[in-house]
């Protein structure tokens, strides 16, 4: 007798837990591999997973086995030219030739790496592990004006459309049992007695009448217990939860004056993409605003932002002013988490740097979630850096600046900027 069962619709991810256990155990290895991969490959193709390889000896499960040596005998198939007593030079490096080679493969002699694939999701998890968006909570609570209704258990009050039938019937049932249980038990007993009495003493009318009366009263009492009482009604409770604004806007500010080379822009671009991916993991929706500037600032699209060429001097405050304008027009700080990343090679009109500082401290920073400034230059810091240092003193939690020298610094600097901080 056979049964044929279609199991195809059953869960297919029975191994998920085991897979996670594996990733958990080799976290250190994987993290290292991820960090290397981030350094190696262009940030723009971060949209897929990564091949991780772990040295085989770190991962094998040992068992007791025979080592080489002693006298080993093996039988092989497919003889062609050998005759009994032939002597064959010992082949180097095993291969198929004797030496207990068959056992080596699964016991840890093999130095081959264990290679496997992790998904993009897992890749990003490892990449952004230990990183957190600063000041996320503060803004979450402030300025929420949207609500979301969620289920919050069962209530005794509510409107009829929300009646929970199962719960209501259950409590009605419980109430009926509680109120009429005793009477019912007595009723069953009385009925039995009556039956018995009618059989054994059919002419004992007094007792029979008494019993019948009692039964009648009991029935009346039971009937008085209502089937459903308002007391029983249960309602699904819905409550309004404040829905924290999960929208973010990311301003990318870049200097496109003559001193910024394509290589510098590339570095800036990678930094922006990294930031974008990171924000994407924290917010449902992200707007990106590109502002480029030389002596005057302009909001542009991505293509133009990264690839069009401009020449001229540098006035950073122009970009800051434009950003302030855009925030006022489109991104109310009450509804949006505002992030800004500014990349520059550090050049600025000397007279302009103090203006930038004042603008930031007085106007922009209070609305900002986080402002990070990266200076992409191998040279000495310039005036703008020192002015920004003062801004950082005013807003130590939401302002950070770092210097990037070459592409290899991008990820470490990024980590430094968003390193999880101790709660203060």
């Amino acid at each position, binding site marked *: *007798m*056979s*049964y*044929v*069962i*279609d*199991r*195809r619709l059953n869960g*297919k991810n*029975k*191994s998920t*837990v*085991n*897979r*996670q*256990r*594996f*990733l*958990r155990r080799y976290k250190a290895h994987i993290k290292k591999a991820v960090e290397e991969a981030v350094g190696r490959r262009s940030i723009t193709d971060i949209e897929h997973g990564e091949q991780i390889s772990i040295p085989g000896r770190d*991962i094998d*499960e*040992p*068992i*007791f*086995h*025979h*080592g*080489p*040596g*002693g*006298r*080993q*005998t*093996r*039988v*092989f*198939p*497919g*003889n*062609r030219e*050998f*005759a*009994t*007593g*032939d*002597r*064959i*030079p010992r082949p180097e490096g095993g291969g*198929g*030739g*004797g*030496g207990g080679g068959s*056992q080596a493969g699964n*016991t*840890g*002699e093999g130095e081959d790496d*264990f*290679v*496997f*694939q992790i998904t993009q999701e897992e890749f990003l998890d490892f990449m952004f592990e230990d990183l957190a968006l600063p000041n996320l909570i503060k803004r979450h609570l402030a300025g929420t004006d949207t609500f979301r209704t969620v289920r919050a258990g069962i209530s005794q009050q509510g409107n009829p459309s929300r009646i929970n039938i199962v719960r209501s019937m259950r409590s009605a049932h419980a109430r009926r049992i509680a109120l009429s249980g005793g009477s019912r038990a007595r009723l069953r007993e009385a009925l039995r007695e009556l039956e018995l009495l009618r059989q054994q003493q059919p002419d004992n009318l007094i007792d029979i009448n008494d019993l019948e009366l009692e039964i009648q009263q009991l029935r009346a009492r039971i009937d008085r217990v209502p089937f459903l009482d308002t007391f029983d009604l249960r309602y699904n409770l819905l409550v309004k939860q404040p829905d924290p604004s999960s929208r973010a806007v990311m301003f990318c500010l870049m200097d496109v004056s003559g001193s910024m080379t394509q290589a510098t822009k590339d570095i800036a671009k990678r930094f922006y993409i990294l930031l974008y991916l990171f924000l994407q993991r924290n917010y449902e929706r992200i707007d990106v605003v590109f502002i480029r500037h030389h002596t005057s600032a302009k909001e542009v699209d991505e293509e133009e932002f990264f690839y069009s060429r401009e020449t001229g001097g540098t006035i950073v405050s122009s970009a800051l002013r434009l950003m302030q304008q855009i925030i006022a027009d489109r991104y109310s700080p009450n509804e949006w988490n505002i992030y800004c990343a500014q990349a520059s090679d550090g050049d600025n009109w000397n007279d302009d740097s103090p203006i930038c500082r004042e603008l930031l401290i007085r106007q922009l920073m209070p609305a900002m979630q986080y402002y990070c400034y990266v200076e992409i230059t191998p040279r000495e810091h310039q005036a703008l850096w020192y002015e920004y240092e003062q801004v950082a003193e005013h807003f130590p939690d939401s302002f950070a600046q770092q210097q990037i020298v070459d592409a290899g610094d991008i990820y470490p600097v990024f980590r430094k900027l968003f390193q999880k901080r101790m709660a203060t």
Partner: protein
Amino acid sequence: MTRQPISSGSEWTFELIREYDREIARIAHDIYGLDTYPNQIEVITAEQMMDAYASVGMPLGYHHWSYGKHFLHTEKHYKRGQMGLAYEIVINSDPCIAYLMEENTMTMQALVIAHACYGHNSFFKGNYLFRSWTDAGSIIDYLVFAKQYISQCEERYGIDAVEDLLDSCHALMNYGVDRYKRPYPVSAEEERRRQQEREEYLQRQVNDLWRTIPINPDAHNKHQEESRYPAEPQENLLYFIEKNAPLLEPWQREVVRIVRKVAQYFYPQRQTQVMNEGWATFWHYTLLNHLYDEGKVSDGFMMEFLQSHTSVIYQPPFDSEWFSGINPYTLGFAMMQDIRRMCENPTEEDRRWFPDIAGSDWLETLKFAMRTFKDESFILQYLSPKVIRDLKLFAIVDDEKDDHLQVAAIHDDSGYRKVRELLAAQYNLGNNEPNIQVWEVDRRGDRSLTLRHQRHEGKPLGKTTERMLKHLHRLWGFDIHLLSMEGDTIKAEAHMPPRPGNSEESIPRFDMNIPPI
């Protein structure tokens, strides 16, 4: 005879699977008299097949990272097309569960049904090792219990503690089986009920063993000092640890026991690979050919079937790049076919070598062989000169004292017996795994555990020994000593924690005192 094939296309449907199953069952049961458990045929997807792979054939297993590793490995190779998945997995349970992959064609499904549901299934039910060592009826329940118990432990004691313990147990899994003593089957519900009592009882027993207060100083001590504990060497290391390790918590003992039970369940499968696959292959071949003879399947069906049948039983020669040992399907199938041939058409040679079976009833002979042997004894008993010749088997000796390999025997008159003996020995698990036994526990002293490795053909232990001792140390909790013996002489020793320097240095040596020139 007019052919009326059950199906003609390659697409399968559930109705067709049932139809084929009915026909194959009829032939298997009524004509060949195979005795099987009821079948539970489950159709699954490739992903589910990979899941089944990862849990090494257990239909449900407890969680452990090593299964995740298996899974990642399989997934990677499969997705890159480096390997195909097996067409089926079959589980020794009652009812016998067989997984069919949905990608298979109708022909493959029929092949798999014949192979797994009637071949393997009847082997599980018939072979003496499975009959006496595993309990098909309760294994699923036991695995459910094991899974629940281990996840409870994880909740209570943390994932890491359980994982470390399982690592150590898995390392010793091959040493967690009783080779000679037969366990009696216990149902899973009873298992659960007993588990609590066992915890308390075990701990009490262990406490007794390690009691340091002398009970009766005059009478007992003298006797105990003289006797070694355990009195006889113990081969089941996990069992010994479960019962005697001084520091294990009750739940840890239970986990050791679970791993031991699972190892015991798989032990017969490891000992009957050639027979089991050979038997199943023989029967899918025989049953499907019978279907063809009855006109129930088409020529196209047979072509496809034979194509995959031949690739399953292909044996690459030793110098091929595909060679990875002797293919159990090839050897098993060749031997089963050969037994039938010897019964039906014996040659003069067969009458000389196998007077008992030449000319006897093939079905009875074959069933007797299936029931009564394991790989080692089966080969020793039935490997005929013809199979040795067909497979061109030859034996190589690799002795460390010799700088050359030597051909010990080939497929000729003087070599048949030798090849047969050597091949049989190759399937003796006792020869393949180092023979390590518990020798002594220092009960009155430092509580150290001494193991002895008895060398087989002078083979030393491999490189993993030190890590293995660490695992043993984790379970035992006190020092571990491992002596590698050749006869009665100690050839090598290993200690955990490692002893500073060699043992030789502890003995003062005169030549060491001479200052270097």
